[in-house]
């Protein structure tokens, strides 16, 4: 272990009532040379106001193009413990359920081969292991796969699909999110481990419009549980809520589509105008429940601002029945990928491609019918452009 380093700037980040990553790194540094030198290089970066990391490269495990993110430092003599500081992504169980035994096994492997530092979970959805060397990657891979785990996605591939806890704990869930996530992960093993796309593609599955995975803002494909019949109402429970809350103000008054009315006795909903936002159901869960005809709204294009600006997902299929083995969903995803593969530029997300080429190209390629729910904003010009084949 290199000599002790003074870290006055990092020490400042230990102050305050919130948890501190510096405190955690210091704890790990007591037994890990990598964590020890991480403190040193971080302090140095804060002082120099430049990063000392070099990111990317060809490190990985045989046969896989993702799951390991190469990282080296540019001061290896000064901080030998972080000369290599590769990140390993572990594909988590659907809904992020771990047994204590599984967690202990994973942590033991990581203590043996790496810094012991983790992100649980990174925004990618994977369990992220921070800081190991090139020669440790194959042994890590051998040990995790022997226990039934696998690496997650990184690079220009399908990233690890993720889901909310769905029906396992949540009464609002309209779809079996965990099963969908697990099934898609198995169907798309090749796309997950062998990067062949123009750029990354993320799938996140939420059981209802509360969207606990934040899919709409973060996923290229958001699968959001919904229903298409009527909200189920228990009027006796509505009366109970009426004695505790102002339904006219807090429920009816805040309905975004104004599809509800309450006369002091019964709550009425015009379901044709309801946009399934979940506000009323969240506020009065004993009185209101989603309808019985359940499925998902499929949305496309969400992303953070990396190459171009941030995008929110928009609807491409208002309602899709989702039952195992989800062949209809797989078919749609494969058609979208084919279109994106054909036309996408390097580092162009699928939402950006739709923006560049227009919905028409995507719809023609996938065979999806144009529907009013796809309109995300008023049109900005009055012209209608017809394809040559559409003009008689």
């Amino acid at each position, binding site marked *: 272990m290199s000599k002790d380093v003074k870290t006055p700037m990092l020490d400042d980040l230990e102050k305050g009532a919130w948890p501190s990553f510096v405190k955690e790194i210091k704890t790990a540094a007591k037994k890990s040379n990598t964590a020890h030198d991480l403190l040193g290089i971080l302090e140095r970066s804060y002082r120099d106001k430049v990063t000392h990391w070099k990111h990317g490269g060809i490190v990985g495990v045989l046969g896989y193009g993702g799951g390991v993110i190469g990282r080296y430092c540019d001061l290896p003599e000064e901080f030998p413990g972080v*000369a290599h500081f590769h990140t390993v992504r572990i594909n988590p169980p659907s809904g992020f359920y771990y047994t204590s035994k599984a967690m202990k096994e994973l942590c033991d492997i990581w203590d043996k081969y790496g810094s012991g530092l983790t992100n649980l979970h990174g925004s990618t959805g994977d369990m992220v292991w921070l800081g190991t060397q090139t020669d440790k990657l194959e042994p890590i891979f051998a040990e995790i796969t022997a226990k039934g785990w696998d690496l997650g996605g990184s690079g220009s591939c399908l990233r690890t699909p993720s889901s909310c806890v769905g029906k396992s704990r949540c009464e609002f869930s309209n779809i079996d999110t965990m099963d969908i996530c697990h099934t898609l992960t198995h169907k798309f093993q090749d796309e997950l481990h062998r990067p062949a796309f123009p750029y990354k593609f993320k799938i996140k599955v939420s059981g209802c419009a509360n969207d606990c995975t934040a899919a709409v803002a973060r996923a290229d494909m958001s699968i959001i549980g919904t229903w298409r019949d009527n909200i189920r109402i228990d009027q006796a429970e509505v009366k109970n809520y009426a004695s505790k809350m102002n339904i006219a103000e807090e429920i009816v008054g805040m309905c975004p589509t104004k599809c509800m009315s309450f006369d002091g006795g019964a709550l009425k909903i015009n379901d044709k105008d309801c946009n399934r936002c979940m506000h009323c159901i969240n506020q009065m869960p004993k009185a209101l429940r989603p309808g019985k005809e359940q499925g998902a709204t499929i949305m496309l294009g969400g992303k953070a601002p990396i190459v171009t600006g941030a995008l929110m997902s928009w609807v491409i299929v208002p309602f899709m029945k989702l039952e195992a083995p989800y062949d209809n969903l797989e078919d749609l995803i494969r058609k979208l990928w084919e279109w994106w593969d054909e036309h996408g530029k390097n580092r162009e997300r699928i939402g950006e491609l739709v923006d560049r080429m227009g919905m028409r190209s995507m719809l023609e390629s996938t065979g999806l019918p144009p529907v009013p729910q796809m309109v995300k904003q008023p049109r900005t010009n009055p012209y209608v452009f017809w394809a040559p084949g559409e003009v008689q």
Partner: protein
Amino acid sequence: MDAQELTKKVYELVEKNQGKKKMKAGDITKAMEAEGASRDEVKAAIRELVDGGKLVYSYFGGSFIEIPHTEGSANPQS
């Protein structure tokens, strides 16, 4: 084109471009499709080469396919 010939052509394409142009899986697929191979056949050829260690994936702001080499940025291990 049989599978063995396709695999050879894929390797030669990557070799020819090594150090000049970073090849994505999509670039290789399009080049081989132009020579009559199907998308699935190219995918299988790439997989065989990567699983055999003759080609590797790399990441430089996007994923590419290269011939294994020592990275300039790789530090000697401590």
